């Protein structure tokens, strides 16, 4: 595995008119590595993703792919360079079949000339195979509508799709946010699987637990700037949570909870801390 990062941002700024959203963002991801981008709502995560995915061009600074500076002409251009984004709701279409979802925009066809026919059989077969390879064994029928799948399975389908279409960088935008514990574990397994296959993964989340399970490298984003950048094992979960919440707030909250516990025979307040 080469040491050149697959994708790298150098001192990237992004402003919309007078509003600066990102300041001096520098980060890099190598193949087979998971970078976790942590940040509270409004920290600029979405803008950063969109910059990585070619939706926005950076105002200043540069984006490098395989060590070469590039300017994406649009999301399609970024995709062609192997940068795939899987959004929160998976980019799947509930009322379409697994096979059709999987090949959306890249439909396999048979026939010739203008009389192209969507090759349903091949599409279904490959889709089911690929999804199963990622460890989702419950999907066996490519004609099934995606609306009948669970949230985790939909997310996994979208990831499997990106991997199949040659993604080298996988940007996952809050893939576990709306999922239950079991479903989230599912998705995390798939993130691991993608990593094992040598993909560079950028995993955006605000759930520290999920990040710590799969991440090799962490960056905490606060108000559009990277507030901390560290590797696996360098910081504890509490420290990270602290950082994300801007430090002081979390410590105050903790103190108030401890105060409560002292006066209530060691019982925590009814509202438990966010898991």
């Amino acid at each position, binding site marked *: 595995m080469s040491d050149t990062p697959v994708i790298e941002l150098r001192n990237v700024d992004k402003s919309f008119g007078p509003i600066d959203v990102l300041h001096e963002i520098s980060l890099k991801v190598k193949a087979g590595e998971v970078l976790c981008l942590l940040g509270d709502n409004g920290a600029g995560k979405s803008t950063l993703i969109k910059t990585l995915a070619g939706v926005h061009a950076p105002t200043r600074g540069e984006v490098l792919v395989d060590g070469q500076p590039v300017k994406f002409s649009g*999301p*399609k251009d970024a*995709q062609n360079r192997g940068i795939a*984004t899987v*959004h929160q*709701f998976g*980019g*799947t*279409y*509930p*009322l*379409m079949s697994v096979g*059709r979802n999987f*090949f*959306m*925009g*890249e*439909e396999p*066809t048979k026939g010739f000339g203008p009389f*192209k*026919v*969507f090759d349903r059989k091949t599409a279904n077969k490959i889709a089911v195979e690929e999804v199963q390879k990622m460890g989702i*064994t*419950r999907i*066996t*029928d490519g*004609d*099934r*509508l995606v*609306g*009948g*799948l669970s949230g985790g399975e939909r997310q996994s389908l979208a990831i499997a799709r990106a991997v199949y279409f040659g993604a080298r960088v996988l940007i996952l935008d809050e893939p576990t946010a709306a999922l239950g514990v079991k479903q989230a574990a599912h998705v995390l397994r798939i993130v691991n699987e993608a990593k094992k296959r040598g993909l560079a993964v950028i995993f955006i989340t605000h759930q520290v637990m999920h990040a710590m399970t799969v991440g090799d490298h962490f960056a905490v984003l606060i108000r559009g700037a990277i507030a901390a950048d560290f590797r696996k094992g360098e910081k504890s979960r509490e420290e990270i949570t602290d950082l994300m919440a801007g430090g002081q707030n979390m410590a105050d909250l903790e103190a108030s909870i401890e105060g409560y516990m002292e006066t209530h025979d060691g019982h925590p307040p009814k509202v438990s801390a966010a898991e």
Partner: protein
Amino acid sequence: MADTSNNEKSTGGSGFSLLGLLRRPEAGAAAGFILVFIFFSYFGWDKNFLTPLGSSTWLNFASKVGIIAIPVGFLMIAGELDISVGAMIPAGGIVMAMATNQFGMNIWFAVGFTMVVAGMIGWVNGMLVTRTQVPSLIVTLATLFVIAGLNAYLSKQIAGTTQHSVPDAGIVSEFILGDYHSWIIGEGENSFTIFRSLQSSFFIWIVFSIVCFYILHVSPWGNWIFAMGGDQESARNAGIPTNGLKIALFMLSAMAAALVGVTEGVLANSASTTTQFGMIFNSIICVVVGGVLLTGGFGTVTGTFFGTLTFGIVFQGINFTSFDKDLNMLFIGVLLLIAVLMNDTFRKLATNASTKKKG
């Protein structure tokens, strides 16, 4: 594990099981058609509902709505609406009439010219919707009145009248565009009528339906149309040219409506600027009865086809029965309600097809 997966594959793949058939999206529309057909066949038996001539009454009516309903259905699947078809029908008729009368064009040039004009209007609709992000219901409601106004104004300015006569188009052209067709096998007493007095528009509708079926369900573009209605943002991210495709769909619906105007004009040898407000609702009813989801992302051409047939029967069928004619609208309203409720059930069946297999 291997065993269960095999079992699942066989039940999912066969598609011949009754449940599998019921899960098809057009099943509701087809079932509704059969019910309505039987109902009117029984109550309309004495008044020749089932005779070739009787059937032509509702088939001819259905064909005109149907030609418009299919592209309107496409738009609805893509998450949009087109109301302006109501003014596009007369626009098609009068543009063709003026092109032949005032500009002396050959009938086929005139038809081509009409299609170009209709395509341009559709393009404007599409551009307005994709550029402004204003809901297409409002945009096309506005263009409906703009086109209606232009119909009346330009027709008065250019031809000096709102009632145009359309010259005879010649045998071949009339045969294709607007004529009554009959097919009777045998002679005299042994003769058997396959169909009688079917208008050309019926055959245009059939051909158009087949072409549209190919576009939506067989070709890869169909996927894109569904994706646009399912989740436009994701579709764009997947590299689908959503704006271009949407504009193309608006052009298709405008051209289809104009084509209906052309066939009516050639058939009746006259064209009028009267806006056909009824057809707006008729086409939407057909699409909804056909099982297309109003919010987009779901529907079939076959379903719309059956929905149109059902609507045609209910709209015209009452004339063959002894029911009071005043009940006509009530029948259509009830049909629409039943269809929507039924489609909802069928759609749930379709999405939940998986949960049962969990164990």
